[in-house]
């Protein structure tokens, strides 16, 4: 081999003892430390943006309004109010109802689509996935606004049907109602539902279905006994991904809900806006989160029991 030696600097360095500072040594030894160092800016942002605000929110929920300021003596008065005054309970119930219906509707409508792409699309699957989920990444506000345009008193449906002679007077129930909110929510969150269900369906080992066919199952039986149970995790995930964010939705009920379709999100916003009762707003937020957690836990428990029974 020809002697193309390394540069003098390199040769010198290899001859010396290699010294490293105590900090570098510590970093080198501890993987956990290196990991945390890397994550530190992220952790900082999370602390400032989520953890600390959350604690202050809890604190504020225990305060009460005092003129333009706060009476910081800790009290559960706000929580008591949410329990006693019927409007809060009613609003929460309505919010969960609306979200629940929207969730069920979305899942029912989207499942066949997810099934189609998972099982019947063989070329350009990526394109289908992108097409299905694209709207979800764009402005939520604008997509809700689109429905306002469609459902309005002089909106697309009404004016369209009228000019086609299908109806004589505009349909009043379309806008500013619970129905409007439900339809809009279902449409807006469809993409969020499809992805987890698709992933779950895609993962099903096709040879399982072939085995079932071999053992005598027709298509309906195959679907009910194999495909559906195995895609359950995706359905459950999709349910959470729609239900939880929509319960606290503000934009949709604000634009289309009217008084009948108002949800807890509107009320929270009011507390921070015109009503100017921030502690109450904080309390409502916490109560909302508690209820969501409770419902989620119950749902998980029930589905787990059901799955145990099937398996």
């Amino acid at each position, binding site marked *: 081999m*020809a002697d*193309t030696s*390394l540069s003098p*600097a*390199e040769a010198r360095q290899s001859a010396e003892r*290699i010294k*490293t500072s105590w900090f570098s*040594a510590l970093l080198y030894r501890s993987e956990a430390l290196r990991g945390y160092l890397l994550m530190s800016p992220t952790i900082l942002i999370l602390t400032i943006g989520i953890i600390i605000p959350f604690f202050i929110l809890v604190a504020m929920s225990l305060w009460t309004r005092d003129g333009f300021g706060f009476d910081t003596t800790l009290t559960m008065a706000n929580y008591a109010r949410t329990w006693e005054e019927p409007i809060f309970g009613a609003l929460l119930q309505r919010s969960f109802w609306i979200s629940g219906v929207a969730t069920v509707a979305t899942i029912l409508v989207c499942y066949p689509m997810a099934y189609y792409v998972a099982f019947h699309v063989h070329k350009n699957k990526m394109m289908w996935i992108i097409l299905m989920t694209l709207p979800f990444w764009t402005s939520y506000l604008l997509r809700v606004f689109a429905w306002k345009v469609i459902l309005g008193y002089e909106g697309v449906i009404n004016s369209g049907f009228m000019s086609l002679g299908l109806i004589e007077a505009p349909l009043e129930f379309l806008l500013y109602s619970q129905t409007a909110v439900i339809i809009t929510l279902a449409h807006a969150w469809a993409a969020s539902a499809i992805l987890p269900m698709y992933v779950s369906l895609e993962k099903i080992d096709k040879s399982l279905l072939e085995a079932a066919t071999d053992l005598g199952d027709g298509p309906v039986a195959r679907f009910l006994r194999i495909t559906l149970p195995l895609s359950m995790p995706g359905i459950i995930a999709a349910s959470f991904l729609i239900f939880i964010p929509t319960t606290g939705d503000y934009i949709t009920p604000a634009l289309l809900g009217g008084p009948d379709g108002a949800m807890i999100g509107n009320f929270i916003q009011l507390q921070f806006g015109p009503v100017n009762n921030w502690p109450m707003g904080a309390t409502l937020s916490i109560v909302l989160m508690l209820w969501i957690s409770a419902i989620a836990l119950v749902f998980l428990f029930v589905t787990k029991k059901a799955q145990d029974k099937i398996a």
Partner: protein
Amino acid sequence: MKNDAFISIRNVNKYFGSFQAIDNVNMDIGEGEFFSLLGASGCGKTTLLRMLAGFESTSDGEILIDGQPSADVPPHHRPVNMVFQSYAIFPHLNVADNIAYGLRKHKLSKAQKQEMVDEMLELIKLPGYGKRKANELSGGQRQRIALARALILKPKVLLLDEPLGALDKQLREQMQLELRALQRQVGITFVFVTHDQEEALTLSDRIAVMSGGKVLQVDTPEGLYEAPKTREVASFIGNMNFFQGTVRRNGSSEAAIETQGLGSIPISLEKVTKPDGAPVQVALRPEKFELLEEEPTGGHFVSAKMDKTAYLGERSHYYVTLDGKSEPVAVSSTNQFVARDDARWKEGEPVWLSWSPEAVVVLDAD
């Protein structure tokens, strides 16, 4: 091949959480040696290799490379280079850029780098491949590029992590010979990790057999095969027959081992240090036995019965049962001078088993 301890591993332990991956390992590796770490998956050999490279730190103990403690030296400062099991060829660079990757720090001119790369390509027998995209090459070619990439930096030690595992048998055997020749040519210390005992035996100057994080024995291939120190090592490499026995001493001039199955075997005094009456095991490789039709007139022999035979083409394996031993004894003999029509051993036939005491290995009792 000098044997000053070029790499010293002293009392090294490594814990992952509560799991102990390396248990009090001590080892010396000489300069210019082809040294193998041999063991089954999970025995700790790769962990040990990674500690040499600097990707794992030691929990206790120290590792010295060329006299320098490596404790806080990160991988990019060590005079050590590694060939990874997956080869880790950079897909976004071509072959020449891959090989020249580590030269960036050394401030060489473009021409110098080019010359070194071309030299390497010659060495690994891929001349002119410089401009190719690294992704387009076969497994064997990528492995050689990984080698070149490491060797171009003239490391003091080359670490190889099961580099031939992904290759098919023929290519693997060819690469084994090439690797050996390369190591001789370049003269660098190679530390080679493998689970394939044949590979280790073929390539190595010395082998460290590992199991459960411990080093069982460090020896030359012959040493490991002919003189294993424990039952585990003995049965790890090749096949082995074991016989329980007791030491019998007649003063200090003679020693023998009373075995179950082979009778009394005289043993030279260097091989056995235990006192009279101590329990031991005696081990014999299958090929050290000879099968005879008639009772021999001299030497050591015992009568047996043929139990099963297996014809393997180049050799045949026989299993014979003896009095005093519950399991059959494995005997292996070549079919070197056996013609197709020659008479063969039949199952159930009486045979005579003969062996030489020198081939006997004495081990501690279980």
